[in-house]
């Protein structure tokens, strides 16, 4: 096994079952993952997709589905400018009950040696994990910086 590239840890005042459900549920991910809705039947080998505003953003395959302890899938960015040109990387989520909280560890590795997807992801995960925590603890989600950029682009399109 290659050395993991990213390891992110967050503690959430919740149960492993609830965290696991949030990570695998279409409606929940659409809320806390900034509009990125996950869909899969979560059988090993089945496809995993993330759609935002009807567009395919990420696709992959289920590697492990062991609720509520471990979830793993391959990950390929399908949005601009990558459009599925880079090889699949791998996401592993480990959930561990620690007293009244859950330790969630996200490991993301197996990137292409000259990966460009990598840089974007390193900014993205802390935001997604903080939003997940807010969603489960306070039923509130965070705001993604790219909402502004998106709104700006749409406003420019509308005026031109």
């Amino acid at each position, binding site marked *: 096994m290659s*050395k*993991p590239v*990213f*390891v*992110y840890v*967050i503690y959430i005042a919740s149960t492993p079952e609830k965290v696991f459900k949030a990570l695998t549920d279409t409606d929940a991910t659409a809320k806390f993952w900034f509009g990125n809705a996950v869909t899969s039947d979560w059988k090993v080998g089945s496809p995993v997709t993330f759609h935002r505003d009807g567009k395919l953003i990420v696709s992959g395959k289920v590697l492990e589905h062991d609720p509520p302890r471990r979830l793993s899938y391959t990950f390929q960015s399908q949005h601009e400018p990558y459009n599925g040109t880079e090889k699949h990387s791998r996401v592993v989520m480990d959930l561990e009950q620690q007293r009244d909280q859950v330790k969630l560890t996200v490991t993301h590795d197996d990137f292409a040696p000259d990966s460009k997807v990598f840089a974007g992801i390193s900014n993205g995960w802390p935001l997604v994990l*903080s939003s997940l925590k807010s969603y489960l603890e306070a039923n509130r989600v965070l705001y993604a*910086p790219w909402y*502004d950029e998106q709104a700006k682009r749409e406003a420019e399109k509308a005026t031109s």
Partner: protein
Amino acid sequence: MDAVFKALADASRRDLLDRLRAENGQTLNELCLRLAMTRQAVSKHLAILEDANLVATVRRGREKLHYLNPVPLHEIGERWIGRFERSSLQALRDLKKALEAE
């Protein structure tokens, strides 16, 4: 959040985080190289950083790999930086960088 600020209130520990930012996933031995600190001191600092969740560790065989975990820092940003300030702060940072590069 107290643990995060206490962990950051030490130059040696900030230096260790810088080193992990430059190269993530280092072992204790690798982190001790070229440092004017004893192995015990580095180990103690890493434990404080790990307690504050600023460092995440992964076991690989007999090795323990250390990773910079930016999640708590992100939570601090979320608490005090408002959504509409983010782009103006970015612009200020770009200006500072450009002026200092001259």
